[in-house]
């Protein structure tokens, strides 16, 4: 068994790197063969925006990394280059390396899903990694479809209002935990790369539309025109919040007994604001419809950081600020049935247990 875990942050200073570091340390303790990459570039010593120091990842010997050429000399760790791939990034081609001397590393891995898959497969199949951590990049979520589950780091740096923060995180949780299409029905959808309208019988007539994504109003009209005889709508690619809302406005009760099937939740989350998207998903359900995904990408845990960089107008600089930690943890935990952890206070032990339970690997 192997497991690929994505770690995403909702904003700078929400503790994504702290979370990754803590998980790394736990994994080093239990000595699991480990791979580490990131979506893009992360690991600046100083946070570019706020000017506050930012921890970088400390990697130990034998860890396998995917790392762009220009970042090889960016930390104190030393590497043996196992392969220089054809994957090019603005910071040079991606190298697969093994850490030969422990130290701090600047991780900049491939930033496309397909490339992440290539790196991941290589780490697992050729280099024997059991766990692969994928460090997220701010504002990027799409490549996370290649992971088996994600951990989201959020906190006061995202929003200092606890209610808003909880609602927003809850929306992500709901969206990421949409029910899966049953295994026997998967075959009908896997190979469609355009929006497909399935008639009453799934193996019956299928109408394919022009686009794979729901991003324009023309497509909405086509769906509305054909809806009479449709049992399921499959959207293999992106779903835009704006256009989904348009579709809902047009269909309303026509959703009754119909199923919207999406490839994975990321195709939804990439298309808009999670809360608004959730609202649209709920509208479909309220009208008697269902929403399912082909591929599940569960939200495994939430890590919280009550810290935020507080802007001081008088000094024209940032200083540390905090929101009520207990309240934040309590409200967040009440809203979701997954572990909610203050990673700085608590460490990653419980987090890792949850993760390992999920994959059923125990060292």
């Amino acid at each position, binding site marked *: 068994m192997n497991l690929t875990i994505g770690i995403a942050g909702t904003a700078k200073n929400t503790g994504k790197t702290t979370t990754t570091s803590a998980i790394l340390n736990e994994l080093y303790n239990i000595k699991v063969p480990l791979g580490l990459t990131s979506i893009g570039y992360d690991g600046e010593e100083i946070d570019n925006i706020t000017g506050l120091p930012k921890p970088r990842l400390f990697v130990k010997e034998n860890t396998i990394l995917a790392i762009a050429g220009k970042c090889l000399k960016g930390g104190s760790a030393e590497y043996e280059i196992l392969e220089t791939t054809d994957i090019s990034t*603005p910071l040079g081609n991606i190298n697969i390396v093994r850490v030969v001397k422990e130290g701090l590393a600047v991780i900049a891995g491939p*930033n496309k899903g397909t490339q992440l898959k290539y790196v991941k497969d290589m780490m697992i199949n050729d280099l024997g990694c059991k766990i692969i951590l994928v460090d997220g990049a701010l504002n990027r979520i799409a490549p996370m479809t290649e992971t088996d589950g994600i951990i989201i780091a959020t906190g006061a740096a995202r929003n200092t209002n606890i209610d808003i923060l909880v609602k927003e995180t809850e929306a992500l949780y709901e969206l990421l935990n949409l029910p899966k299409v049953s295994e026997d029905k998967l075959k009908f959808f896997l190979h469609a790369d355009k929006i497909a309208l399935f008639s009453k019988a799934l193996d019956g007539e299928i109408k394919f539309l022009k686009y794979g*994504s729901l991003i*324009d109003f023309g497509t909405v009209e086509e769906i509305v025109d054909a809806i009479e005889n449709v049992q399921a709508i499959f959207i293999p690619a992106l779903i835009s919040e704006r256009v989904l809302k348009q579709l809902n406005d047009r269909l309303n009760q026509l959703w009754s007994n119909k199923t919207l099937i999406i490839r994975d939740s990321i195709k939804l989350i*990439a298309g808009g604001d999670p809360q608004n998207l959730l609202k649209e998903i709920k509208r479909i359900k309220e009208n008697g419809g269902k929403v399912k995904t082909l591929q599940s990408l569960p939200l495994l845990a939430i890590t919280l950081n009550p810290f935020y960089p507080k802007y001081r107008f008088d000094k024209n600089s940032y200083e540390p600020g905090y929101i009520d930690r207990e309240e934040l943890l309590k409200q967040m935990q009440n809203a979701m049935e997954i572990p909610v952890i203050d990673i700085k206070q608590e460490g990653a032990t419980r987090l890792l247990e949850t993760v390992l339970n999920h994959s059923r690997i125990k060292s």
Partner: protein
Amino acid sequence: MKKKKVLLAPLDPVHDIGLKMIKRGLEQKGHDTLLMPPDHSQEEIIKSIIDNKVDVVLISRTLGYGVAEILGKFIDLAEAAGIRDKVKIGIGGMAIRPELAAELGFDAGFGPGTTVEEAVAFVEGREYKPLEAGISREKKDITAAYDYSFRNKRIEKLLDNIVDGILDYTSDKTTTAILRAEIRRQIIDSTDESEKEKLRREYAKYCDDVVKSFYEAGKYREKTRPLTSDEVKALGKYVDDVNSRLNPLTLQHIDKNPVVFIQYGTGCPFMDIAHIKSCEAWGANGVIHFDPSWGARTEGFLEGYITHEEDGSIITYENLKSIKESLAPYTLWQVRAHRGLNTPETVVLAGKIGADLTKINIAYGSLSGGTDPERLTVDAVAAIKYAAEFGMPFDVVTNEELSGVPAFKAFAGMLIVSKLGLRLGGKPILQPLFCYSPEVMISGQMEDNYIDFNAAKIYCLRNIINAPIWCGAPIGFLTQTEDRVQSSLMTALHASLASSLGVDAISIASSDEAFSKGPITAPSRIDTLRATQASFRFFGHSDITPTENAKKWAEEMEEGIEKVLESVVENGNFVDALYQGLLGSREDGAYPGRAGRNTVLRKS
């Protein structure tokens, strides 16, 4: 190469001129382009990518606010829409850096200063090689295009006659400077420290007391001191640091624009290097070593890393070497040997250390440079031979104009030394002054404009010989004031005049040229480089048209030169002609120098 379909899309409420320029660049290379209007939603851009089946997308984002969120989202949309693997996506804008582009998942990021060519290279999937590092960043041999044939055969004949006389006159003579040059060469070539010591003792015998006391008792001249090893080490590191981030600007706008030299000589080799690196960064093509005036009147050179508190940087092997090592590989380097008592040794040092050019002129050095005519004539013949041996072209400067010698007389001297250079296998470069010289202040040829008389000089020289021309030194001399704007403008206009006249090289001043109360500064150097660049840009291939006076004065000058040369031939001895004032008289303001008088030795 396959034709690419490129979508250019601004993620801004307004259109980015950069995208339009890139669009034009791509179309010139035969690619299909589509420019989206501004203010479209990200979904609309994604849809357009799908509809048009484009290969490459170039996004521009000028505004810095929220840039990471918006751009990250765009890449997520592209990936979720399933097109990320099919199209290359680049991002450009003021707030963009490669690190940010990487973080946001773009294939390339183009920040401020990106060229159209860079974006085209990205589209075509080529590695971008900046132009600066290629074509225009090669060292240019400004003599390459010239065969030195004479158009004025009468003048050529007169010159040959004079040169015969010079070679005959100097054939049985030598000087301590020539002896020192040979010993210096042996010191440099020797690897044996005890042999070097022996040679140094011998060297010291041919030096002035002040230099002797350095070699014998380790004494430094006043206002000079050795640099510490800490300073030398720190310099090495500084230069390495700077070189690692040096990506120089290009001054020239068109091929015809001349090579641009700057003079350095702050006194301290380290400050020189700091200035040189700055000038390189702002596009100077060459640098000229400017030594202190007392160096010209002292027999012998010192050794070691030595700094100096006044104008001019001391010539020692180590000083020159550290300057040479700090230069970018494409920077032309000239070490002047044109006057003074160490001319042959200067050329040996320059040649051994790898200078590209030197500077030799008997007439200027002996009439305005303070060196005895006979002494300098003998030294110069040896120096020119070294220059030829080391393959260093040398310019023949005519700064005696600044003492009041009229241009035609100064040119006569310049042509004699040039012909001498050619005879000895050297490659002379004519260096007329582009200045407001005392001659015209009196005779009024610049009352109306600064163009005609300078143009006349170039026309005149072109009528005589097919040789490279390097306007000096610095151009615009005596037209500049202490104000940086006026000063830079004067330099830039003279640079464009030189370019319009098709000359090969120019030496430019800093905007501190007219300031004499202290050392010149780095910003003042950048001022004139920027001004010159702007002026080249302004004129392009268009020319400055002199009035009819230019041609008329050129003819007068040519006649004047011929008359001067005739008088020298008539006199029968070039050295005597210098004493007699035929190439610049006391009335003109030229005085035969006294340094080194009666020091010429018979060859043993």
